[in-house]
């Protein structure tokens, strides 16, 4: 796999946008539009703390690594894991420069509390798939740490979730190759969208411009 191919890789963090709204994902990742709001700034602040890449901790049987860049050739996605914990475990794999065998557990930091939707889970599963490819290992669970409850939630990496991630990645690449920004059904979730002012969700349910112009001209 040459570097040219890797140019095609999409951002792993886009999965959560894509699950929230395909159009929002396209506006950010295809059209490169971005507007800050209070929520996005808060999120960045949190990740800044989690992403101190030079912080490497060893606590007993655990090795804690922050801001680890990952990618998957299979998904053609690339991103950064907030935290990866390696636990000493005879069933694990060997790591460069470390003694013993380790099992890897990705941990993603999120502001707020656990969500009803799958967006956080999906992102974590994709990170797990990346780590599996890069470490040639099997990852059976990961964790989501929520700032507001100051607690981590265990997430099993199931077959169903893996398949969902694969299908999503495929669809994202399909849109990206065509540079196509899909039109989507709008809903109350549009009010929480940081791109509302650029997306103009109202346009989705609008009558045609042709009828607007002709209606006005015939008045």
């Amino acid at each position, binding site marked *: 796999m040459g570097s040219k191919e890797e140019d095609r890789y999409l951002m792993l963090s886009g999965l959560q946008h894509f699950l929230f709204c395909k159009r929002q994902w396209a506006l950010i990742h*295809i059209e*490169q539009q971005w507007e800050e709001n209070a929520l996005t700034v808060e999120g960045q602040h949190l990740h800044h703390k989690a992403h101190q890449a030079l912080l490497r901790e060893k606590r007993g049987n655990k090795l804690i690594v922050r801001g680890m860049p990952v990618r998957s050739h299979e998904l053609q996605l690339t991103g950064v894991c907030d935290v990866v914990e390696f636990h000493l475990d005879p069933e694990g794999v060997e790591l460069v420069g470390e003694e013993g065998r380790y099992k890897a557990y990705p941990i993603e930091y999120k502001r707020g509390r656990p969500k009803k939707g799958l967006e956080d889970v999906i992102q974590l599963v994709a990170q797990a798939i990346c780590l599996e490819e890069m470490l040639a290992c099997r990852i059976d669970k990961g964790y989501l740490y929520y700032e507001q409850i100051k607690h981590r939630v265990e997430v099993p990496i199931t077959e169903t979730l893996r398949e969902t991630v694969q299908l999503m990645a495929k669809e994202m690449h399909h849109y990206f190759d065509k540079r196509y*920004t899909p039109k989507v059904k709008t809903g109350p979730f549009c009010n929480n969208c940081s791109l509302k*002012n650029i997306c103009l969700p109202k346009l989705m349910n609008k009558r045609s411009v042709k009828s*607007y*112009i002709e209606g006005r001209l015939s008045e």
Partner: protein
Amino acid sequence: MRKLLNTLYVTQPDAYLSLDGDNIVLLKDQQALGRLPLHNLESIITFGYTGASPALMGYCAERNISITFLTASGRFLARVIGQSRGNVTLRKAQYRISDQERESALIARNFIIGKIYNHKWMLERMTRDYPLRVDVERFKSISHQLDEYLYEARSCENLETLRGLEGQAAWHYYQVFDDMILQQKESFTFHGRSRRPPRDHVNAMLSFAYILLTHDMAAALESVGLDAYVGFLHRDRPGRVSLALDMIEELRGIYADRFVLSLINRKEVTPNGFYQKENGAVLMTDETRKLFLKAWQAKKQEMITHPFLGEKIPWGLVPYVQALLLARYLRGDLDEYPPFLWK
């Protein structure tokens, strides 16, 4: 909808603009004349040879605050804008269409339709509001004439023909422009457009209003990721914001002309506020320019319902919304570009 932020107009030619923290500071002889937080501003327009510090320009460039330098009389000198928004896909669509005559015409005709339509309804509104002051029959007959140009423009797919239609429609509109001046007739009369330089009070104000509108439009286009210099109706010419000029066609009458007319008709400007150069050029005094800018800012705050979106927005956001609608058309979300058809 996005929030309408303020424009800072600096009319003091010997002021120097500098940055202090998150504030802009106006200096004169090393003394601070004033200080404003920058987060409330979306653009800065300076008149005369006002200087600005590189630090301020950098700060503004990063935060999408445009700085425009105009001469004392309002002629464009330069603009400082930051890195263009990353939207390459949108810009490529814009360039591709701009290179194609027919596809350009399909967009350009809606600019022209917007322009003629809005002129027509300005005339209709005059006959409704002032039946005793204007020659209703004459206004109606020109309005009918404009209807015919509208009809022709609707199916026109050729830029030359479109420019011809626009020229004829404008000629008719200007026939009754002077009749829309209802007050101070002895000092404010309109004998046709004169530019470079404007040769009467009315033209001096029209030119100035178009400059402000063009600035607002260019800034709006850049902020949605479009290239203000690449147009569809106006062909590229180095240094000319062709797309901004295209886009203000539909707003000239309804936004700028009506603004100027109301300043005269409400007697907010008086003939004393102007002076004439030896060569016949008419200029506004500093006081008139300040009053003009203040009224322009006030106009931007007035709320309207956008005719296509059906959403309540301030007048000042109209350039931004039209820029956004054009971007959404170029990205395939809309079947045509929806002009601002105001009634």
